[in-house]
């Protein structure tokens, strides 16, 4: 008895919503970044769940390849994002997002 794909989709939506809540709600920049990673992970789960559903082999490989490239992009994004946090912290001595309002209109 396999798990219906709808369960995976609902779980992914729930994880994505939790991540979205964290990104809107937290003031610590690192935690907001972690919430974004959580959302990315939920999107990957959706892709893998759909890739199981498709009977055609090449389409299933495509689904897994997209997740592979998403993981690599996530690594690049994390490296640049964390370097930005270090640079901001050097300048401002804080990464509290409410205090980083230099570009606020």
């Amino acid at each position, binding site marked *: 008895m396999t798990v219906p794909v709808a369960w*995976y989709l609902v779980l992914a939506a*729930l994880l994505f919503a939790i991540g979205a809540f964290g990104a809107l*709600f937290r003031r610590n920049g690192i935690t907001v970044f972690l919430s974004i990673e959580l959302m990315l*992970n939920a999107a990957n789960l959706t892709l893998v769940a759909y890739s199981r*559903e498709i009977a055609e082999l090449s389409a299933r490989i495509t689904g897994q390849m997209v997740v*592979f490239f998403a993981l690599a992009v996530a690594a690049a994004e*994390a490296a*640049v994002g964390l*370097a930005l946090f270090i640079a901001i912290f050097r300048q401002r001595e804080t*990464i509290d997002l409410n205090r980083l309002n230099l570009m606020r209109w």
Partner: protein
Amino acid sequence: MEIAVFILFALVAVISAIAVITHPNPVYSTLSLIVTLFATAVLFVLLGAPFLAALQILLYAGAILVLFLFVIMLLNLRRQRSTSPRGRGQVTVAALGAVLFFGTLAASLLATGRPEPGALAPVSLHQLSRALFSHYLLPFQIIGLLLLVAVIAATVLARRAPAPEEER
């Protein structure tokens, strides 16, 4: 059996995801995210993608989140916790937005038409690597270039300013 494993690890993923966004200490948030990623890796195995599960653990939990931990320890964030007031109604608006978002997302995902599943043999590593180095060779090279650019950018950004009058 499969359903039991799914429910167990789905619960682990959701609970640790909630811990990620609620814990005041970013170190514990990062460790909770590692638990979420491990649970998701188990779900990847259930979905017939063991290669992605291994990548998830090696790359995400092993490399990216260790980088997060390093940065958190480098910045030493413990002494400045909740220094600024939360915006008025921020909790309400964020919760409302997340719940609405979940509803829309779940409804649209469930309403999407799906083809009938075929024989559910997992995609073998052989097939994946053959596709990666033939059909996806150009994206693969571009990803390598992107990672190189990201490494250079991170080094430049995180470098101390070489100005003669250093402000620290």
